[in-house]
C-alpha cells in the first residue's frame, strides 16, 4: 500500500446511476476518517436526461487529502465511469497514467454509438496512456444479489454501491459509515438496505480477492484544527448562517423564495427550520418572493429572499424599494451560468455587475461574497448583521459550486458569533421616520403596532428626517448622497485585508467568491516558482475595503481572476486607475489551480 498526500477521484455516469449519492458517501467517509476534502458535484440541467448521452452525464469530483485541501482538484487521479459517455466526457480531465475503473457491461454497441465512440475504447489502444480496470459491475452485482427478492431492475441500481465498495478498497476506507447510512435510509425497506450493503461489501471483497488494482493507497488524516466538524454544502451553511443571525438578533426569519436552480436548497433547508421561528413563503414568482420579504422586514422580522441570476434580474425594482425605505433584507444570489437561462446547473461569477449595478437610479448596496462552502455560514451571518445594523438590503453572493460543493465545517461556539442588535424604536419622543443614527446613518426600525409612531414609507423620494414625499431638487440630491454614504460606512466594519504570500512585490492577485481555493493554491505554486506574488480575497465587493488601494500600490502588477468575462476588474481599474489584467473563464467550471499559477507566471514573465 502506498501513502499519498492527496487524491482526486471523479465518479461519472447517467443521472440515474446514483453518481451523486456515491460521491456524497465517499465524501462523508473521507471526512469521518479525518481527511480534508473539497467536492464538486457537476450534473446536467435535465432531471433524467436520456440515458447514455454525452449531455446526460452526471459527475461528482472529490479531492481528499492529508493536507489543507482548498479545491476539488484540477484533474483527477481516478475516474469511475459507469458508461461510455461518462468515459468520453471525462477523459480529458484525467491525469495521464491515472486509473480508469469502468463498468464493462455498459459498453454495448448502442451505448458506444450514443457516446460517439466509433470503436470500443476498451478494445483498442485509445486508453493506452491510462491504467484501465474493466469490471462487469452489472453482472457481478446481479450475481451477488441472486438471493435477493428484488427485481432485476432494482438489483442493477445497486451497482453504484458495488463500485463504491471497490473504491473504498482502493483507498483503504472503512465501509461502516455507508452501511449505517444505508440501514437508516432504507429502514422501512430492509430488502433494499440489505441488497445495497451486500453490493457494497461484495465490491470491496471482489477488489481485494481478484486483485484488480495494481496498487492501493492510503491517505492519512489531515492536520485539522481541533473541534467538532460536519460536512456541509454552501446552501446549508447559508441557511444556517441566516437563521443563526436572526436568532442572535432576537428576530424570527422570513424567507420569500421561488424555486430556482441552484438556490432551491436554501429554501428547502430553511423550510425545515420552522422550530427556529422560520416562516417560508414559496411565492408565486421571484418578484412576490422579494416583496414578501420586504413586507416581513417592515413588520419586524428578518426578511430574506434566495434566488439565482434570472431571479435577481426580476427582483431589481423591489430591491430598490427596500433600499429606498431603508429596511433590512438579505438577498441571496446563488450564481449560475448566464445570461438568460444560461447554464442552470453550472457555476459562474457573472452576477457581479447586476448585484452592484442592476437597479434604476443611484442605488448602491453592500454586496458580500462567500469563498467556500463552509464560509457561506460566516458570509450569511455577516450579511444579516450588516443589514440589520445599517437598514439597507445586503446582497450575499454565492454560486453553484459553493452551493452544491461540500467541505468540513468547524462547528462554531455560540459565544464566538458577533452580537447583533435589532434595536426597534418604540419611543415617540422626538421620533422622525427618516432621522438617522450618526454612526451608521441607519434610520429607525419601527414595528407597525407600536403606538404613537404611525408613519408612512414608500418608494417616492423622501424628505430628509420627516420622510414625507418630497420632489425638492436639493433634498433628492442630499438623500441620494445619504444612501450612498450609508453604504460606504460599511467599510468601518471591515477588518484589515489579509495579504496571502508576499506583502509587496511583483504581482497582486485580487479575487472574490468561490475562486478562493484555486487562487490560494495557484499563488502558493507561483511563489514556489519564485514570483513575488501576493493575494487578497475580497469579502465585500461593495463597498471595497478601505485598505485595498494601499495594498495595490505595493505591487507592480495586478491580476484579477474571475469566472466571468471581466466584471470586478472594471471596478478595480475604475476605482484605482491601475492597469489590472484579467484571468477570465466562463465554462461553467471552477477555476483551476494550474490556470491561476500560469496566469501569474504569464503576467510576470510575459506569455510563453
Amino acid at each position, binding site marked *: 500500500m502506498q501513502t499519498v498526500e492527496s487524491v482526486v477521484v471523479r465518479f461519472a455516469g447517467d443521472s440515474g446511476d446514483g453518481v451523486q449519492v456515491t460521491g456524497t458517501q465517499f465524501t462523508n467517509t473521507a471526512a469521518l476518517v*479525518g481527511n480534508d476534502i473539497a467536492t464538486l458535484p457537476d450534473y446536467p440541467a435535465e432531471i433524467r436526461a436520456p440515458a447514455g448521452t454525452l449531455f446526460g452525464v452526471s459527475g461528482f469530483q472529490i479531492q481528499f487529502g492529508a493536507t489543507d485541501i482548498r479545491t476539488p482538484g484540477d484533474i483527477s487521479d481516478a475516474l469511475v465511469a459507469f458508461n461510455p459517455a461518462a468515459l468520453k466526457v471525462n477523459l480529458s480531465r484525467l491525469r495521464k497514467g491515472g486509473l480508469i475503473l469502468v463498468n464493462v457491461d455498459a459498453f454495448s454497441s448502442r451505448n458506444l454509438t450514443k457516446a460517439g465512440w466509433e470503436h470500443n475504447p476498451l478494445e483498442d489502444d485509445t486508453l493506452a496512456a491510462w491504467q484501465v480496470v474493466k469490471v462487469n459491475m452489472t453482472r457481478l452485482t446481479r450475481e451477488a444479489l441472486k438471493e435477493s427478492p428484488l427485481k432485476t431492475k432494482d438489483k442493477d441500481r445497486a451497482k453504484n454501491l458495488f463500485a463504491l465498495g471497490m473504491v473504498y478498497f482502493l483507498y483503504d476506507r472503512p465501509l461502516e459509515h455507508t452501511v449505517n447510512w444505508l440501514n437508516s435510509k432504507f429502514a422501512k425497506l430492509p430488502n433494499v438496505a440489505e441488497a445495497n450493503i451486500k453490493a457494497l461489501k461484495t465490491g470491496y471483497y471482489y477488489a481485494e480477492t481478484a486483485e484488480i488494482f495494481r496498487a492501493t493507497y492510503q491517505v492519512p488524516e489531515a492536520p485539522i484544527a481541533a473541534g467538532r466538524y460536519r460536512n456541509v454544502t454552501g446552501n446549508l451553511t447559508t441557511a444556517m448562517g441566516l437563521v*443563526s443571525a436572526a436568532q442572535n438578533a432576537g428576530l424570527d426569519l422570513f424567507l420569500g423564495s421561488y424555486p430556482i436552480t441552484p438556490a432551491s436548497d436554501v429554501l428547502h433547508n430553511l423550510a425545515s427550520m420552522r422550530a427556529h421561528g422560520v416562516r417560508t413563503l414559496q411565492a408565486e*414568482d421571484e418578484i412576490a418572493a422579494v*416583496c414578501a420579504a420586504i413586507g416581513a422586514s*417592515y413588520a419586524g422580522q428578518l426578511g430574506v429572499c434566495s434566488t439565482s441570476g434570472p431571479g435577481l434580474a426580476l427582483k431589481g425594482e423591489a430591491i430598490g424599494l427596500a433600499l429606498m425605505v431603508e429596511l433590512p433584507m438579505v438577498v441571496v444570489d446563488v450564481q449560475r451560468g448566464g445570461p438568460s437561462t444560461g447554464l442552470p446547473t453550472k457555476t459562474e461569477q457573472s452576477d457581479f455587475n447586476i448585484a452592484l449595478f442592476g437597479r434604476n437610479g443611484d442605488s448602491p448596496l453592500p454586496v458580500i461574497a462567500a469563498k467556500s462552502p463552509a464560509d457561506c455560514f460566516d458570509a450569511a451571518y455577516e450579511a444579516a448583521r450588516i443589514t440589520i445594523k445599517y437598514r439597507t438590503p445586503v446582497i450575499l453572493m454565492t454560486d453553484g459550486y459553493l452551493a452544491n460543493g461540500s467541505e468540513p465545517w468547524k*462547528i462554531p461556539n*455560540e459565544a464566538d*458569533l458577533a452580537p447583533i442588535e435589532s434595536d426597534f424604536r418604540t419611543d415617540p419622543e422626538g421620533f422622525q421616520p427618516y432621522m438617522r443614527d450618526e454612526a451608521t446613518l441607519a434610520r429607525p426600525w419601527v414595528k407597525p403596532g407600536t403606538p404613537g409612531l404611525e408613519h408612512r414609507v414608500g418608494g417616492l423620494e423622501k424628505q430628509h428626517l420627516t420622510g414625507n414625499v418630497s420632489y425638492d431638487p436639493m433634498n433628492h440630491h442630499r438623500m441620494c448622497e445619504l444612501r450612498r454614504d450609508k453604504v460606504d460606512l460599511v467599510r468601518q466594519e471591515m477588518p484589515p485585508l489579509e495579504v496571502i504570500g508576499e506583502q509587496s512585490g511583483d504581482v497582486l492577485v485580487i479575487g472574490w467568491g468561490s475562486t478562493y481555493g484555486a487562487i490560494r493554491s495557484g499563488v502558493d505554486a507561483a511563489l514556489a516558482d519564485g514570483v513575488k506574488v501576493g493575494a487578497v480575497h475580497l469579502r465585500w465587493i461593495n463597498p471595497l475595503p478601505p485598505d485595498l488601494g494601499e495594498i495595490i500600490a505595493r505591487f507592480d502588477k495586478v491580476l484579477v481572476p474571475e469566472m466571468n468575462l471581466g466584471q470586478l476588474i472594471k471596478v478595480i481599474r475604475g476605482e484605482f486607475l491601475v492597469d489590472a489584467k484579467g484571468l477570465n473563464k466562463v465554462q461553467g467550471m471552477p477555476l483551476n489551480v494550474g490556470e491561476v499559477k500560469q496566469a501569474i507566471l504569464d503576467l510576470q514573465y510575459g506569455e510563453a
Partner: protein
Amino acid sequence: MNDIIQLTRKDLASDQEVRWCPGCGDYAILKGVQSALATLNVPRENMVVISGIGCAARFPYYMNTYGFHTIHGRSPAVATGTKMANPDLHVWIVGGDGDMMSIGGNHLIHVLRRNVDLTVLLFNNRIYGLTKGQFSPTSGVGKKTKSSPMGSIDPAFEPISLALGAGATFAARTVDLWGKHLQATIKAAHEHKGTSFIEILQNCIIFNDGAFDPAVGKKVKSDKTVELVHGEPLIFGAERDKGVRIRKDLTLEVVTLGENGVTEDDLVVHNAHAELPGLAQLLATMEYPDMPVPVGIFRQVSRPTYEVGMDAQVTQAQAAHGGDKPSLTSLWNQGDTWDVAP
C-alpha cells in the same frame, strides 16, 4: 382587551394634503374608509395600509396609520409578508385596476388563493389615471383612449369573477359615492377571516368620467343595480317589482313580479355562504346594460387562513422544545459530525 377604542374619522386622517384631482371618487372612498375604520375597535397603530402604484395607491399617505406605498402591482405580496410576520396587524391593501389586475394580477390571484387574512380594496375606474388615460384591463373592447385611438381590442376582466376564480372567500362590490353601503361593506370585510376582496366602482372624473353613472348614478341606481343579501331573493327596481330568475340553461334573466304569473318564489335567492362559488360566479356575469349590476357581498365562506397555518407549523415545531426555539448549537450539530482531537 374589551376597552372600546374611541376613534373618529379625523383621528385617521394624516397631516398630508390630499392630492387627487378635485371631484375624484377617491375622496369619497377615503372618507368612507376613515369613517369605517374608526368604528372597528382596532387601535390605530395596528392598522397598516399597503398600496402599489397609481392614483389610488397614494391612499396610505392620507391615513394616520402605518402605511407602505410600495411598487407597481406588488402590494399583495408585500402585504402577505407583513401579515405573516405579524398576524395581529389589520392589513388593508389599496390599488386600482391597472395596479391589481394588470401588472399585479399574479399577486392578486395568489393572495386570494392563499386566503391571507387581509382586505383588498380594488378601486375600479376602468382607466389608467396617473399615466394620463390609457385603457386598463377593465376598460373593455372598443374603449377609445390615447393608447387605443381606434378603440381597444382588449377584452375586459370582470374583477369579481376573477377573484372568485382565484378562490376568494369574501368578494363584494360597492360604489365610491355610496357612503353607507361602502362603510357597511368594509366592516363586513373586516369581520371576515381570510382575504376579503372589495371592488369599489370609482369615478375618474378626468379620464373616464361617468363610466358607472348609467348603472350606479343617483337617479338610476334603484333600477340598474341589485343588492345581494344573503338568504333574500334578488329583487330590485324603484318599485321593487323586478327580480332575477334563473333559466334552465343556467343563465339569468330579469322578470317583473306579478307579470306572467311571476312571484318571489321564482327568483334566485342569494346564498353567499354556499360552499361552491357557482352561484356567485353566475351573479358576477350580470353586467350593465342587459342586467342590473349586483352590489353587496357575492360570497363569504370560512376557510383556514394562511398566516394561521404557518404559525401553527412554527408552534408545532417548537412544541418539542418547550415552545421555544432550540439552541443554535443543536441546529449546527444535526447530521453526521466528528471530532478532531487537539
